[in-house]
């Protein structure tokens, strides 16, 4: 089957998932006791008349499905409503935070997958050697560590104790460069990135690593690897072949990993005071600022669904069998 047909089908699939996701969110955020008119004012001690006017204004008197259509339409067009807390359009608050989140998340995900695949291939290829056995068990350990705890330990050690890195945030309020390289525009942000990225990579590297290792061990037993050896392929070419085939499960996993990465991201942002949407979400939930909470949740979910689609497309590209 042609690749584009496969791509179209996956895209249609994603659209359906996105709609379902909107329904899911609509229901989820209506689990809040009372309705927005009462939440907004905290106590709900508003005169009945005024409440009624607000209900009409916000369309809360219309049938559920109409409310949902308006809601979905608004979200999809970027009209995320007003923040109860900041009294500003949600989009203005969320947008810069989203960019900050990507600044932290991209290196975490990319480095984790690259390191995981490289180390996983190495371990899988060396199956049965003593170093591999120890390596495989060592690789389990970081997967078991809670990311926020690693963050705390890193902070206590490298920020408070050794003072090598800042104790959190993304930029320093009053930063005076001492040498030339400190004057580089991204230097300050990079310095703030080191600890959170280290904590993130340490904990999210383990999964791609273990998956790549397991897949490689399985691939090594495949007939086509014996045949590749029979064809006189060099050790390097054989390993490239194995890595290429064994990478497919990692690719599948990377879609799931993005979902997890947002979870880890929330924790990282809280521990390191990173001004991203994860921390914003936790704060807005605590402050019962539901429009903001909803918007951050939607953005994360939409990002996961979109990245899932991209991974599916990459899979279809790399594995011709899947296109059927």
């Amino acid at each position, binding site marked *: 089957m042609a690749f584009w047909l496969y791509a179209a089908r996956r895209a249609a699939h994603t659209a359906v998932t996105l709609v379902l996701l909107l329904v899911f969110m609509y229901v989820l955020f209506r689990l809040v006791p009372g309705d927005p008119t009462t939440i907004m004012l905290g106590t709900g001690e508003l005169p009945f008349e005024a409440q009624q006017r607000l209900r009409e204004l916000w369309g809360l008197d219309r049938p559920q499905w109409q409310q949902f259509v308006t809601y979905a339409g608004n979200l999809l067009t970027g009209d995320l409503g007003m923040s109860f807390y900041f009294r500003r359009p949600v989009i203005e608050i969320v947008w810069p935070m989203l960019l900050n989140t990507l600044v932290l998340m991209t290196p975490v995900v990319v480095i984790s997958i690259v390191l995981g695949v490289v180390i996983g291939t190495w371990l899988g290829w060396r199956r049965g050697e003593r170093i591999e056995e120890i390596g495989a068990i060592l690789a389990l350990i970081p997967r078991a560590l809670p990311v926020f705890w690693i963050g705390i330990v890193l902070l206590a050690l490298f920020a408070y104790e050794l003072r090598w890195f800042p104790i959190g945030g993304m930029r320093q309020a009053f930063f005076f460069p001492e040498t030339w390289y400190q004057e580089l525009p991204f230097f300050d942000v990079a310095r703030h990135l080191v600890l959170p990225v280290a904590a993130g990579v340490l904990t999210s590297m383990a999964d791609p690593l273990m998956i790549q290792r397991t897949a490689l061990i399985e691939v090594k037993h495949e007939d*086509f690897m*014996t*045949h590749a050896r*029979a*064809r006189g*392929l060099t050790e390097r070419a054989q390993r490239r072949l194995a890595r290429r*085939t064994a990478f497919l499960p990692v690719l599948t996993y990377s879609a799931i990993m993005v979902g997890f990465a947002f979870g880890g991201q929330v924790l990282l942002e809280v521990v390191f005071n990173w001004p991203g949407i994860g921390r914003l979400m936790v704060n807005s939930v605590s402050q019962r600022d539901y429009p903001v909470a909803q918007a951050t949740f939607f953005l994360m979910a939409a990002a996961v669904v979109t990245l899932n689609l991209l991974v599916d497309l990459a899979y279809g590209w790399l*594995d011709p069998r899947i296109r059927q």
Partner: protein
Amino acid sequence: MLALDDVSIIYAARSGPVQAVSGVTLHLPVGGSLGLVGESGCGKSTLALAALSLLPPEARLSSGAVRLEGQDLATLPEAKLRRLRWTRMAYVPQSAQNALVPVHSLRRQFRDTAAAHGMRSAAADERAAALFQRVELDPAILDRFPHELSGGMRQRAMIALALLFGPSLLVADEPTTGLDVIVQRQVIDLLRDLRTEDGLALLFISHDIGVVAELCSHVAVLYAGKVMESGATDRVFSLPNHPYTMGLQRAFPDIRHPERSIVSIAGHPPRLSAPPQGCPFAPRCPFAQPLCHNTVPSLVAGPDGRAVACHFAADAEALRDRARDPALWDAAA
């Protein structure tokens, strides 16, 4: 061309070492054809891999030597061995479905193989197109992926790939198993042509004595990792000297004689982790005597280039007469 001298192979299994092949000696002359027949688990595929020096890590050559054109493969460094593979000896495995790289087009697999031996992509493409014509495949198929082809097409593509460097030895391990009869016939015809026209030496492994009879001038019958009988195919099949060969032959139906009843051989092959003390076939042999259960018969070469491992090889003629009666085998089963 290819010589296996007293080859024994041991697998390290979970339950302990398993002697998959013991003391097998085989010779395949230049341009010759040798069929290995036997039931599943008799060591056929292990021997094929040993002939290519491709044994998996858990298996090892515990004794003997495999020689290709006089060179002992075990003594060659890996780099030399690698260059020998595919240029001098090629391999057509049992399942082309699993042996072709699933994520690469056929063209890519030709090119990768070519690159491993220093041939350029353009030259590889040209050669691949010519070879596809040789195996009666449309060269346009080169750009397809293995899963897009039928079983017969895949197996022929596999053979074309084996011929990339015009090797002098082809090891084919059950290349027609799982194919439909007409497609199987096509593959057999192709292999026969390669043998007679291109002078390719063929080591052919099969459980089907009919296919071996059509394709190979010489045959070795394996049982429990040992050669029971070997020699020229027409001699072995017309005058089998070993009771196992006789039974195997009687177990095979012949479509020209639907009235002939086929037999089963009682029992099942021995477990190689705990082989019987005497002749491995003794527990299933209708002619077994106390001697057979205690002493392993050695493979004795006869005058006509044949060898047989049976204590009663001298009485073969009488045994053959008795083996013709299906009641004999039924009584044992």
